[in-house]
């Protein structure tokens, strides 16, 4: 047993570290580190920098332009990027739909979509959840009806998706749609790639507790989708979606970002005063910071154990989702508490990078409460933590 990174892995970390240090634009990192509002261009710019370096798709096989890194290398990369304040690479295209296209897509889909995903030419969104189908995703109702036509076979899509993250930017959306309502619910679902610019699509913002526009409702009204946009076989969408879940989970622990937030928290608690002394010296507060730090240490090793195991990450990945989001939420909560009464002021205008008004309280306090409320989403999205517990109890414990 050797719980150290190998020499090669350490060298790799050095390489990533210096690349990120030299190439991550300062303005973008500044926004991430100070919880300012990001705009589409911030993500795209960073992804294009990674693309130029050949590092934008660590999880893709080499033949498609990926890095074919080991899971440990991918983790090192994620950690370094997260720690430095790089925006999260948008997972919808690169991490989610791409592996599905690579494994189940047609030659045309591979040739057309994969290069555009790689170069960030298309912004992808995920079309899974519906108003009536959250945890019970397989009950989804958005319908795609096949139409044979001399002008080209196509589907007509009607229905609604919701909680569509950054759907306001999307050029494409991959959707789970119902193509057959006469069979078992999982077997009637198909995986369809839909152009967001198609007539009949309406995007309506959902404003979250921090008054930000991050998620949307997407309405499909008689939307025509070419038949060639169907991935794999009709009725196999559920299988593909489950395949995708395994790909989605490894980054979910967010160890690098949490390390960064922990450090910021300690820094803030060192500056905030409680009865004339740094809050960090208050045993009550310090003990709670310690408790999160210990959880994070354990999470990192748990993650590395999962990544190092020879078998593909299975239901154990749910542990990473649960503990990863626990840690993230605990950090936002402690950061908010560290502000004392300065948690109250709410000035969304200060989150614009161009804002230069008079601040209220310490600058680091400006978005603490907003971030706390925003991060309540993490235990709900990507399969709620209740669903993750169901997965573990059924698949691991056999209960």
């Amino acid at each position: 047993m050797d719980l150290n990174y190998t020499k090669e892995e350490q060298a790799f970390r050095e390489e990533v570290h210096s690349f990120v240090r030299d190439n991550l634009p300062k303005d973008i990192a500044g926004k991430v580190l100070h919880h300012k509002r990001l705009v589409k261009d911030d993500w795209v710019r960073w992804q294009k920098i990674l693309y130029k370096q050949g590092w934008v798709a660590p999880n893709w096989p080499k033949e498609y332009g990926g890095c074919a890194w080991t899971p440990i290398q991918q983790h090192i990369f994620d950690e370094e990027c997260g720690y430095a304040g790089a925006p999260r690479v948008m997972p919808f295209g690169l991490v989610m739909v791409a592996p599905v296209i690579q494994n189940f897509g047609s030659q045309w889909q591979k040739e057309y979509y994969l290069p555009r995903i790689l170069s960030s030419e298309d912004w992808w969104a995920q079309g899974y959840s519906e108003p009536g189908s959250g945890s019970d995703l397989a009950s989804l109702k958005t319908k795609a009806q096949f139409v044979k036509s001399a002008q080209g076979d196509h589907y007509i899509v009607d229905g609604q998706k919701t909680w569509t993250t950054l759907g306001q930017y999307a050029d494409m959306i991959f959707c789970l749609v119902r193509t057959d309502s006469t069979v078992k619910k999982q077997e009637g679902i198909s995986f369809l790639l839909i152009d967001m610019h198609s007539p009949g699509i309406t995007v309506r913002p959902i404003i979250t507790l921090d008054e930000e526009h991050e998620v949307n409702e997407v309405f499909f009204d008689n939307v025509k989708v070419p038949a060639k946009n169907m991935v794999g076989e009709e009725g196999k969408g559920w299988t593909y979606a489950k395949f995708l879940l395994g790909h989605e989970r490894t980054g979910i622990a967010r160890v690098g970002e949490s390390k960064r937030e922990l450090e910021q928290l300690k820094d803030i608690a060192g500056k905030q005063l409680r009865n004339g002394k740094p809050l960090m010296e208050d045993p009550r507060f310090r003990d709670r910071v310690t408790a999160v730090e210990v959880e994070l240490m354990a999470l990192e090793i748990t993650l590395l154990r999962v990544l190092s195991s020879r078998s593909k990450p299975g239901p154990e990945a749910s542990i990473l989702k649960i503990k990863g989001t626990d840690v993230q939420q605990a950090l936002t909560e402690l950061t908010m508490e560290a502000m004392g009464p300065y948690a109250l002021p709410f000035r969304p205008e200060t989150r614009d990078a161009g804002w230069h008004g008079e601040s209220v309280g310490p600058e680091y306090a400006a978005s603490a409460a907003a971030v706390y409320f925003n991060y309540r989403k993490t235990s709900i999205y990507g399969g709620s933590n209740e669903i993750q517990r169901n997965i573990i109890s059924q698949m691991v414990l056999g209960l």
Partner: protein
Amino acid sequence: MDFIFSDEQQQLRDSIQKFISKEYGFEARKAIIASKQGFSDKVWAHFADMGLLGVAFDEAHGGFGGNSVDTMLVMTELGRGIVVEPYFSTVVLGGSLIDLAGSEAQKQAILSEVAQGKLLLAAALGEPNSRYELNCVETTAKRDGAGYVLNGHKAVVLHGESADKLVVSARTAGNAREAKGISLFLVDKKSAGVAVQGYRTIDGMRAAEIKFANAKVGADGVLGEVDAAFPVLERATDVAVSALCAEAVGAMEALNAATFEYLKTRQQFGRPIGSFQALQHRAVDMMIHNEQSRSLALLASVKVQSEDPNERKRTVSAAKIQIGHSGRVISQEAIQMHGGMGVSNELAAGHYAKRLMMINATLGDVDHHAERFASAA
């Protein structure tokens, strides 16, 4: 023992409930928050008509002769409606400071105006470095003829921008953290040398940073005994904290009711999600949290009148600790059980959660009161 409200108290409660359910729905509240001043003059006038604004003041001062139990009753209802009008800052905190520190003439002049809805107060107690410690006062008041000159920065003054008069704690003697040497002043917000920077708070209310630069206060603006305001300050904020606890209880009750209703109606896997035991037990814990909070809020509303400062402090801090813990659990669980809807600003649940978390950050969080509880033994 008697836990029963009098007929009069029950009538008062019913009338507030009726008003809130009729006039203070989610959309009405949203419009009020979006308005320039952030609360409704119309609602405020209605509160005056209902007698809410003077409920705990002496009849001699234009009030209705009630006490902190009546305040509790009102605040619970306002919490249930997440009402954003400046009741807490004007009537409860501002009113208690005047009531406990003011001269007979000051009480008569100010409390009667408050009770009629003609005067708004705000308490400027906290400072950028004070966190929750009332004794951390760096703002100074220096003698100037018969009056004083104020200099300093007061932080997160609840409803500071809309207030007509400010109750300000300032140092007349001693060092920055000494309990002795603090005095209270009644300052007209429009006075020269008073600069107000107002802003929204995340729970839908308003607050302000207030800076004093050689602001003059006449002799009639001194509130209570010079250099000796700290005990009064503690007592008045205890009244305020017990009222906040009552507000939290109302908010918890409403939030729990909304969550339990959601558990019964939201269908997944062909049945209501409330049929899953994993959620049932957590819902029960939320209900127990609410009951435990109610118990201590009741106790605090009675014991805050105690002449024994230790008994008063212990009880009030115990209540604030309980509602801090319970408010956190209930608000987090409520959001989680509402799923995506819980993080949407378009549903009331999240707004209750915001208020509950900010109550914890007002006049002392759990850690602050844990220490205070232990030291008041």
